[in-house]
């Protein structure tokens, strides 16, 4: 299938290097600008998500949440970030300095890389590869490395238990989320994120693939929650059991990076879910087609869908109790994985006989 590739980021680099004739230097400038855009997005989205989480949690818990700093308390998380920036960084005495400090760089790098492959709107994807889905799921498993390193390097038993739990959990649930993604890939016939979105022009995959797609979606949500370490799968943190788990010994910005990355991971999981199942940045039933620039409407629809998905994850978090480590594994290996495998076979049969809508 031939897709008309529009990519505004590529255009930008092209503009600097070729139109302005700055050559290699222009290319570098373009990359830097794109990187800055993504890093700004990383921090702003992270802070907004933290604010949103606190506000949503408050409404679930009969409270008001942050409402003092700025209008509706919107600047609360920025104030918190400033506070964390100015805090002293202190850790345990005998920490492994290299591992301890590299942990939060890895977590940022992994989240930013995964972010780069997500199509925010028509033509707004920094790293548009033909194996986008594959790339994201590969990169998101690098994130576990940071948690393991943080847990090990802190030289704290609670951190270590948290890190080990996290490794166990991430590696197990990677399988299920991968299978859920593959189910959709079977239907789409492409691994490219933009390709998958374009395929859903007529109907979103959740409806197109009906039963197998719905099962895949449920599996994806469960596995995604587990991968982003959120309740009911927040065992690596498990504040009632482990204090704060793997980031117990981090203070100031070290902690803040983990914290932001956790929320960005949630965003990535939701974004992937939206792209795979709900047609990404496409307007539902094409209701805004031709009303204005497609990329602007795309951004709107994309973020609306992602917000709804994130809200679902938050709803989970503020309702459910936490699982135990053995139950976590039972859920994965005895329920999600067999069902996922069966589901992929069913989907293959459906696709082969053209039973999908």
């Amino acid at each position, binding site marked *: 299938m031939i897709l008309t590739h529009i990519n505004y980021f590529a255009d930008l680099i092209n503009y600097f290097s070729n139109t302005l004739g700055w050559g290699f230097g222009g290319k570098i400038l373009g990359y830097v600008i794109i990187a800055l855009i993504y890093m700004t997005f990383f921090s702003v989205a992270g802070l907004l998500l933290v604010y949103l989480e606190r506000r949503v949690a408050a409404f679930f*818990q009969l*409270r008001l949440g942050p409402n003092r700093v700025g209008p509706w308390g919107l600047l609360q998380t920025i104030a918190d970030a400033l506070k964390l920036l100015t805090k002293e960084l202190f850790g345990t005495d005998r920490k492994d300095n290299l591992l301890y400090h590299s942990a939060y760089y890895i977590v940022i790098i992994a989240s930013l890389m995964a972010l780069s492959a997500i199509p925010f709107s028509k033509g707004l994807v920094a790293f548009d590869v033909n194996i986008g889905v594959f790339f994201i799921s590969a990169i998101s498993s690098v994130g576990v490395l940071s948690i393991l390193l943080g847990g090990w390097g802190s030289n704290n038993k609670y951190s270590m238990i948290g890190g080990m739990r996290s490794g166990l959990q991430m590696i197990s649930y990677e399988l299920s989320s991968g299978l859920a993604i593959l189910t959709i890939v079977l239907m789409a016939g492409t691994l490219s994120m933009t390709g998958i979105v374009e395929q859903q022009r007529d109907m979103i995959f959740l409806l197109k693939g009906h039963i197998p797609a719905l099962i895949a979606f449920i599996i994806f949500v469960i596995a995604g929650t587990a991968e982003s370490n959120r309740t009911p799968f927040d065992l690596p943190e498990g504040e*009632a059991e482990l*204090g704060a788990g793997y980031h117990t010994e981090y203070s100031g910005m070290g902690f803040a990076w983990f914290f932001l990355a956790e929320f960005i991971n949630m965003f990535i999981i939701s974004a992937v879910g939206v792209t795979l199942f709900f047609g990404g940045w496409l307007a539902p039933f094409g209701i805004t087609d031709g009303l204005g620039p497609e990329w602007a409407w795309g951004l709107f629809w994309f973020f609306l869908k992602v917000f709804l998905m994130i809200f679902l994850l938050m709803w989970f978090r*503020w*309702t*459910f109790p936490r699982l135990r480590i053995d*139950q976590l594994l039972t859920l994965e290996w005895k329920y999600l994985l067999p069902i996922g495998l069966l589901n992929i076979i069913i989907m293959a049969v459906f696709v082969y006989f053209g039973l999908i809508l």
Partner: protein
Amino acid sequence: MEQVTLNTADLKSQEYFLNMGPQHPATHGVLRLILTLDGEVVKNIEPDLGYIHRSIEKQCEYEGYKQIIHLTDRMDYLSAHINNEAVALAIEQALEIEVPERVKVIRTIMGELTRIASHLLWWGVMGMDVGALTTFMYAFRDREMINDIMEETCGARLTMSYSTPGGVMFDLHPNFQKRVKEFIPHLRKVIPKYDELLTGNVIFQKRMKGVGYLSKEDAISLGASGPVARGSGVHSDIRKIKPYSALDKVDFKEIIYTEGDNLARYKVRMDEMLESLNIIEQLIDNIPDDGIQAKTKALIKLPKGEFLQRVETARGDLGVYIVSDGKKNPYRVKFRSPGFSNLNALIEMGKGHLIADLVAIMSTLDFVVPDIDR
């Protein structure tokens, strides 16, 4: 060729120590448990107490009998009124005073309200311990209503010092009955919701069922009391065994579950809240009107002898054991606190479970650390 055999008995992982507490979210205060762990499996538990030890028993030896009462507030602060009542009853028993009926009824209603408040707090924290954070605020909303009732009548929300030897400090506030009658239907309405939210939840059920088993024999031998013992099928409600205050006039069920696991203890407390509402409902409409204070001397001196009064606090069997030598100060006061004995049960139950289960078990034992340390 050399045969390599692997003897599984030789495969050993290194055991290590983990300090749980004194500052740990799950120990609800300053309890310190020294855990021996193998991976995440708890091999041994050794409690280390005393981080909030104020030597109340020693202090009592230097205080007058009236002055003991405010100290007991600070033991098990969640059932402060029942503690006050225990000391007041022990002193009344020694002096052989008959308190007015009104006092008895007021004490019983207050005691049951305290019990509900304590169980509600426990329910909220129980949810937190297993990871459901929202339960805490829901429980606090309802508990706040009880606290308001308490504050209106006793002048304090938690440490009421409401009972005195021979009576109570203040008469009931005119709003008391109205507020209690508002509270009863409210709690009746929300508890089924809470059951849907937490009790019925499949994750919660899996976390609770069959975890932390305590057999009936062990429960007795370990000195467990209150909901912990009743969850194991031990008939141990002092309100039934030796009714005090107005409890002999009301009709209520002793909640007993025989499974002996976390879920049984959980259900005992949930049902007990409703049963306490029953008790209050029976008493609230006809509070007799015959004064709030029996005649006592300004300086109370107990006759020579030993006096034991047992009451059922929210945590279990509280015993106040006063040895008097006839002077104005007691010779020896012992508070047999339920939490201290229940801690024995934790040592026994926690072995062989994962840390997460240990936290859940600790939660169902419902510790209040000042009650353990005294």
